[in-house]
């Protein structure tokens, strides 16, 4: 398919690379943008935000029922308690809870809206035409493609982020994790679980495989 996200990987001076460089030069020259500010933006989104932030939120919600309640009611002040600032594409964050009865799945069919402050920038698959087109009309098929087979009795709610609201799923805490610390819990939480295309597993698949080989 042509909705790849990285046609120009390893082609440093390809068409887009040159054109973006030209546009940057032009805008810097005109004083519209500042190169140092661009560096700061890149640094922020490449190094400072990412799904580890969302995972911290999830772990806290798992260990602290009152926090969980506050988070589900109004996510922005709740994540602020953890020192997590809001920001572009996340000013109006809503956290939706996965339960044994309801599974939530996040998508943006019209573009690729995504909760940047808690999950960072979206992966290529989230921006793909395949996901954008099918998440709303065939969510169970999509989940199956991700290896998630839900009980047919579980209701699926798909959130199409068509406005300024941004969504994050609060995955279910897996059984057997009662003795784990908050940090250990956070380490279990994957990006996909917070989009709704995965469930959190314990022990994680890699660990389970290693044990199986013992």
């Amino acid at each position, binding site marked *: *398919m*042509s*909705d*790849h*996200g*990285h*046609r*120009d*990987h*390893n*082609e440093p001076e390809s068409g*887009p*690379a*040159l*054109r*973006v*460089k*030209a*546009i*940057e*030069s*032009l805008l810097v020259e005109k004083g519209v943008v500042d*190169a140092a*500010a*661009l*560096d*700061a*933006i*890149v640094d922020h989104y*490449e190094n400072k935000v990412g799904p580890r932030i969302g995972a911290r939120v999830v772990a806290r919600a798992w260990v602290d029922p009152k926090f969980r309640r506050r988070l589900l009611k109004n996510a922005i002040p709740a994540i602020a308690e953890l020192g997590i600032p809001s*920001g*572009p594409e996340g*000013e*109006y964050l809503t956290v939706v809870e996965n339960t044994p009865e309801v599974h939530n799945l996040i998508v943006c*069919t*019209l*573009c690729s809206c995504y909760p940047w402050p808690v999950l*960072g920038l979206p*992966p*290529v698959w989230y921006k*793909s*035409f*395949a996901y*954008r*087109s*099918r998440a*709303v009309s065939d969510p*169970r098929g*999509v989940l199956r*493609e*991700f290896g998630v087979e839900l009980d047919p*009795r579980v*209701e*699926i*709610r798909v959130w*199409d982020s*068509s*406005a*300024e*609201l941004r969504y994050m799923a609060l995955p279910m805490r897996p059984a057997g994790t009662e003795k784990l610390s908050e940090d250990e819990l956070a380490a279990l939480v994957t990006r996909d679980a917070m989009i709704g295309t995965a469930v959190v597993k314990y022990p994680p698949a890699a660990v389970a495989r290693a044990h199986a080989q013992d």
Partner: protein
Amino acid sequence: MNGIHDMGGMHGFGPIPRETNEPVFHAAWERRMFAIVLAAFGARIFNVDEFRRAIERIPAADYLRSSYYERWMRALSALLQEKNIASAEEIEAALRLTASGGAAGSHEARQAARRPSAEQPASPAGAARPRAKRRIPVRFKIGERVIARNLNVEQHIRLPRYARGRRGVIRHDWGVFILPDKHAHGGDIELCHCYSVEFDGRELWGDEHPAGESVLIDLWEPYLKSATAKRGAASSSGQRRTTKRSVQNKRRVKS
């Protein structure tokens, strides 16, 4: 606009492409493209609705064969011209200069020389506006049955085609946001309530669709009409109520 960007429910795009250990950006130019657009938001050159409209205006064949950041690049180029920041000729001249090595190295040099000094996260898109207390009329209440209007305007609109004419239920009232329609064309700011509307999967995709699925779509009030009102008549359930709910002027306002 009924464009290719409005993909919900389409078939034929194949399996979902997944990547293990995916980097945030896949090429150096993607990094810069992302940052330039965010900086342009920060500089209030255009608003996010204008940017989305510019992406939607990419001809469908080009849209489909471009990567995500290539679409950003095309949209940015169009907006720079539209906003008289840079003409097509200027962009092409800069491209020739860059291609000939005229500006080559300068970006890397700048990057090496300067380290980001700000510890604060860049908030270039104009962070949340302070919430204003204002009475804004609200038409629908939680639990009310509504129909997504069948609007087929050529202008920007954030009402997906797959929901048009379909019946749903108001689940949340998110407060007041800028209606993207006119705003995407550099027009007036129109504030209105935005709701989360839940549509049953069978309502969206037909009676043969499996049960136990629903889609919640965030829709502005003008995209909706009452499902209980008689056709053509203003209904009692559709009458406007004024709430004391705080106006959350949530969307980026052009200064």
